[in-house]
């Protein structure tokens, strides 16, 4: 069946469904509307036909996601890729959802500004996708989440109503913050069509210090105690199996730790000196544009492997990982995954200690407490199916016991949440869905 015809768009808007496979499963059809009107028309028609729609940006995360039961239409939003309004002196920007993070970053950098958003594969990740995932990178605490930076949005509800909330100015409390609700909704409530963002000036200086560390150093709470109040831009811990994929990180130790600062040059210098006092001389120090490139490398790490758990902790130092970095955590079998060193840790950890999060396959952006773990440890090239199956539920329980709350389980089969949502919470979530997608058009319901 020609679904693109069914949903009322010209045949020239149909694109190859194979490009929109989710964990290997392609949709019935894929369309790429060329403008806002076509987008509204497509959603409206799909809703009328009771078709399940998944909005697509760059597919950076979605291609790893499990396809929903009703995967009828992939709605590619990259045809809407204009920067609508850029007011450098107001530090605001309004752009369509399909523009890439890299394109936005370049546009604002040309005027000495900083895009306060980070995304893995920024060359392909779109504004809409990054907002919908409320995605962030190593500088999450410094920049805020997309939800903190969005000023307003235009969106299309599941029954095809084009609406907006918020505005384009930096202070605005008129009406509900629906645009903030959509951040983190993963396209399950509405399609973000266009959004306005609050920008900031680029910092005068940036510096990155790269350390090779063993488990004991990472777990040592005293060594990190000062860091939260130093407000580092970056304080990220990279496990060995991930670090080995990029020559800039440490090889041969259990962890690479990156400490970074941004701001006035004398301040950055002072903070680097304080870091040296606490941690010693780094393996490598980068500054300026090289540091910025390193931040992107760090952001990219979360997309190096397939199925992924993303968790968040209020403890903003590497020592939050102490329970599993060294050998004394629950479910430990001698030396933990983190301590076994390069490469080989992946499978042994999964097989031998199924409930222990494999830290060699983890990235922890400690400055904001965000942890990405790849429980299967499959290589991008290998595909998830080849890896032995760890007990992900037990792993979640173990992480939860140490204060890590699950925010996203990408590409993983139904999990047993360590703290199931209350019935009141389920009702509230359902009410929000009813309000914005009453027909259940958006198939990736959360």
């Amino acid at each position, binding site marked *: 069946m020609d679904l693109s015809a069914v949903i009322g768009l010209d045949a020239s808007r149909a694109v190859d469904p194979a490009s929109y496979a989710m964990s290997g499963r392609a949709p019935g059809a894929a369309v790429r509307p060329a403008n806002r009107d076509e987008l509204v028309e497509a959603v409206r028609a799909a809703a009328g036909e009771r078709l399940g729609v998944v909005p697509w940006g760059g597919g950076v995360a979605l291609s790893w996601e499990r396809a929903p039961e009703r995967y009828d239409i992939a709605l590619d939003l990259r045809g809407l890729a204009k920067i609508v309004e850029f*007011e*450098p*002196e*107001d*530090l*605001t920007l309004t752009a369509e959802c399909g523009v890439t993070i890299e394109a936005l970053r370049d546009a604002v950098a040309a005027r*000495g500004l900083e895009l306060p958003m980070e995304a893995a594969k920024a060359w392909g990740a779109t504004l809409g996708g990054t907002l919908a995932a*409320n995605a*962030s990178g190593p500088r*999450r605490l410094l920049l*805020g989440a997309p*939800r*903190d930076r969005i000023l307003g949005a235009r969106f299309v509800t599941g029954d095809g*109503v084009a*609406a*907006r*909330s918020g*505005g*384009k*100015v*930096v*202070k*605005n*409390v*008129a*009406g*509900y*913050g*629906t645009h*903030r*609700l*959509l951040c*983190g*909704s993963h396209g399950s409530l509405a399609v973000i069509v266009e959004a306005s963002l609050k920008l*900031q*000036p680029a910092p*005068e200086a940036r510096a990155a210090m790269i350390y090779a560390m063993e488990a004991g150093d990472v777990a040592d709470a005293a060594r990190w*105690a000062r860091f939260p109040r130093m*407000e580092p831009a970056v304080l990220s811990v990279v496990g060995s199996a991930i670090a080995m994929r990029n020559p800039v990180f440490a090889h041969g130790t259990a962890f690479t730790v990156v400490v970074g600062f941004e*701001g*006035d*040059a*004398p*301040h950055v210098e002072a903070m680097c000196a304080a870091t040296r006092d606490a941690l010693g001389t780094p393996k490598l120090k980068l500054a300026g544009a090289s540091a910025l490139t390193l931040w992107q490398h760090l952001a990219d790490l979360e997309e190096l492997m397939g199925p992924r758990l993303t968790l*968040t*902790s*209020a*403890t*903003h130092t590497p020592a939050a990982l102490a329970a599993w970095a060294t050998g004394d955590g629950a479910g430990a079998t001698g030396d933990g995954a983190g301590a076994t060193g390069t490469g080989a840790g992946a499978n042994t950890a999964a097989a031998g200690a199924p409930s222990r999060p494999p830290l060699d396959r983890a990235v922890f952006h400690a400055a*904001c*407490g*965000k942890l990405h773990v790849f429980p299967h440890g499959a290589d991008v090239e290998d595909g998830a199916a080849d890896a032995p199956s760890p007990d992900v539920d037990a792993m979640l329980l173990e992480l939860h016991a140490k204060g890590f*709350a*699950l925010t996203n389980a990408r590409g993983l089969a139904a999990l047993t949440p360590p703290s199931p949502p*209350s019935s*009141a*919470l389920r009702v*509230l979530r359902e009410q*929000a869905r*009813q309000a914005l997608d009453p027909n259940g058009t958006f198939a990736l319901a959360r």
Partner: protein
Amino acid sequence: MSWTSDHLAELRALLGPDGVLASDAALFTYEADALVLERTRPDVVVLPRSTDEVAALLRWARAHQLPVTPRGAGTGLAGGATPEFGGVVLSVNRMDQVLRVDPERMLAWVQPGLVNLWLSQEVAKHGLYYAPDPASQQVSTIGGNVSTNAGGPHCLKYGVTFNHVLGVTAVLHDGSVVTLGGEACDAPDSDLMALIVGSEGTLAIVTEICVRLLPKPEAVKTMLFDFTTIAQACRTVSAAIAAGIVPAAMEIMDRHTTTLVEEWLHIGLPTDAGAVLLIEVDGPAVGLAVQVERISALAVAEGTRSTRIAKDEAERASLWKGRKSAFGAYGRSASGFYIMDGVVPRTRLAEALETVYRLCEERGLEAGNVFHAGDGNLHPHVLFNADDPVAQKSALEVSHEILRMCIRFGGTISGEHGVGIEKRPMMSELFAADDLAVMGRIRDAVNPDGRLNPGKILPGGGGCREGSHADAREHAHAGATFVPRSHGGQRPREDVEGPWI
């Protein structure tokens, strides 16, 4: 339903005798917030102490189908805490505890009735503070701040209330309790929390709040520049931003305001200046001197007549006192005035102000301006003789035109006080019908019988289905807060400088 003594007895059983107010005098006090023109007497005022008590109260109110209007300190200028449909006013004043401070992880759980400034005072011993600082922070509550997503002078650099809330516990319309977000960044259900913050009590009653605390800046520098024209002051603000500097605060007072404040407080403000510009920078001491130099140079380039840099904390406090006393100064002098809370893009500030003055002049009215220049958040005061109904009417018309100008310039009708009752009709000018319809769908889904703060925010009478007088109350003075010289029991307290804007 009619109100009976049984109701009071039931409430006293739920909340204790001290938790229920029903005397005439008490009810009078809760008729309105700082929008005093709009008054409705509630049937009862309740003062719960905990989430459980709020939940019990909401179950009770649901059983009796009574509206519930939450209230913090009542400093809002938009009528958000006015019990327009009677029923229950839920005051959070007895929920004023700091529940837990975690200095290491730099966060705190607080009850909604905690006064904003008290939190910073409480955590100062840990070298921490709570950044959002609405000018009313000496009296306004964190719960009230959450309900309006309040701003303040320092939100230019540090962001508004929402940016500092990590999690909330909230009671829904049927008395069920949810926790949204948590202590960590982006904790589960932060998206729903983001919807609740700023919803003016129309979706849920927030009973516990987890806020992010920040390390106190190592150093602060406060500067005051004076200019011949207000346009020069506005250009200096833009120049600072264009130079890549985001100060902690940038506030402008026009000549009218400066004169009123100086006549009152005698703190050495130049009364012949077209405008004064207060700029504060904070952060690591090592970078601050350079920032002060750069900003001063920009002000000189725009033609500042003088530069004053606070030498010590006392002088800094005095400069801020001048700024934060502006509202009180107007209250002392004008017989009546309307205040607006509009926002325009920062780059159009000078043009917007010119329009404000011109619109007023055309009608023979005087205008004063004191505003958060860095954010483009204007608080024009349109002055008139309260005994002259013709003048009052034209002042009201001017106020509407000023807000329409804000919309036309790409801005909005409220930067920090919320929509409440008074800006409700302006919502249809700011938003299209479909935009408002979707907001209505959200309210109707989460607050299905419309009893949580009924009628607020959305035009057309709002959600209280048993209410009959909603439409009649779509009154004429939308978008501007009328403050007569004597306005009964709700006058801003004299003992706290009256810092309300």
